[in-house]
């Protein structure tokens, strides 16, 4: 039964890929992306998208990490519960609503989009940093204290490396959501690949629609892959071995 299911699974996968190829040809998508009038435009939208994602993710990572670390320090630890609650409440707010709120307070353009994207991406990163550091076993920190490490050294040599896996999970969630939300940023006038998708839907032009949808999908999958590589690079070898 398992063998059969696996065979069906493989067959389905091949059928999907073939079907996608035929659909891409039939809808004129391939012609569209190689059209000399179109591909510079697609490329520009792609760069715009990358700019939105890169800029907001860079800011969100810095803010999220700093906020997460600050909330685990002794002086601020008692606020951690409340902040966690606010963050989880903020995460239930839909992405389109966040963008719409950004637009109604800051107007249209790239700035409100960057602002909304940053705020929305800070939440998972800050939450996971907080959760990761809190989950570091206290005996480990005590041992480090016993060895005479200063709080700063404990943070960089004990707490952060041990929390890295959870932090990276948060970063991955933030990045994937960010790429999806940046697609919607077109609606508030920030451009990006969403331009092609939304115009394609409005004009019922499948080729244009796919020229936006396929690069965005590939970008998200590439980001997922990038996070996996980051995991190999940033998580210490010992922890990875311990997991296996």
């Amino acid at each position: 039964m398992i063998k059969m299911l696996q065979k069906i699974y493989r067959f389905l996968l091949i059928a999907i890929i073939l079907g996608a190829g035929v659909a891409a040809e039939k809808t004129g998508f391939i012609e569209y992306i190689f059209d000399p009038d179109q591909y510079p435009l697609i490329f520009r939208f792609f760069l715009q998208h990358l700019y939105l994602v890169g800029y907001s993710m860079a800011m969100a990572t810095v803010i999220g990490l700093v906020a997460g670390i600050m909330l685990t320090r002794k002086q601020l630890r008692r606020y951690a519960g409340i902040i966690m609650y606010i963050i989880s409440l903020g995460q239930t707010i839909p992405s389109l609503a966040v963008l719409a709120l950004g637009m109604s307070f800051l107007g249209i353009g790239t700035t409100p989009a960057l602002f909304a994207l940053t705020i929305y991406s800070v939440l998972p990163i800050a939450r996971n940093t907080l959760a990761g550091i809190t989950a570091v076993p206290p005996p480990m920190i005590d041992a480090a204290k016993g060895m005479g490490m200063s709080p700063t050294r404990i943070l960089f040599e004990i707490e952060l490396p041990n929390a890295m896996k959870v932090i990276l999970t948060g970063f991955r969630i933030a990045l994937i959501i960010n790429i999806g939300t940046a697609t919607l940023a077109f609606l508030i006038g920030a451009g990006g690949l969403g331009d092609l998708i939304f115009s394609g839907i409005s004009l019922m032009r499948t080729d244009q629609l796919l020229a936006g949808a396929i690069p965005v999908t590939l970008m998200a999958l590439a980001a997922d892959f990038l996070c996996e590589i980051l995991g190999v690079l940033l998580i210490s070898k010992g922890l990875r071995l311990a997991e296996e």
Partner: protein
Amino acid sequence: MNGTLDFIVGNYQKVIHLTCEHILVVGLALAIAILIGVPLGILIAKRENLSKQVLVMANVLMTIPSIALFGLMLPILAIWNLGLGKVPAIIALILYSQLPIIRNTYTAIKNVPPEIVDAGKGMGMNRWKLVVEVEVPISIPLILAGLRTAAVMNIGIAAIASYIGAGGLGVLIQQGINRVYPEMILSGAILVSFLAIFVDGGMAMLERILTPRGIKIQRRLVG
């Protein structure tokens, strides 16, 4: 803010209609997603060699941005004239719900203490009975947590689905942006957010109600 409130009160019929539409789309998708996801989660917990493929597949689906998924489905569904409207929205919501539901069901069933399963076997339960009477009831809290994640996420995606004609509260945001009518945008954004927060709270309550009494007593004894 006053303008937003006035807008909601002034258009209460439309607002109620859109809210119901939103809940209907999300609820229907969630119901179908449970019927697919929970059995699949149980299956891969029992057949370990399938688990990786199914979870990776669900993970890839989750990675695709929602509006791009609508776009990718449009040419395929257009063959049956279903490219726009509620059908593609519901299909996309079902696909997105799979990861949280399957993953949580899988983890929950895997984490059922083996001695409890052994006890069930000792009482002469067959495999079917073990699943229905022992493993699933013990897994319910975690399965419901997965449903809660899926429900909140689906409310957000259903808002975007208004752009492919699925209706719902996203319509207020969409039309508000088109007409540069801040009160309309704000009321849409606020209502969708409230709906998500409300459903999140409701599902948390449901989790508490549906958890079997034995587990609650055990938790109290341990904690």
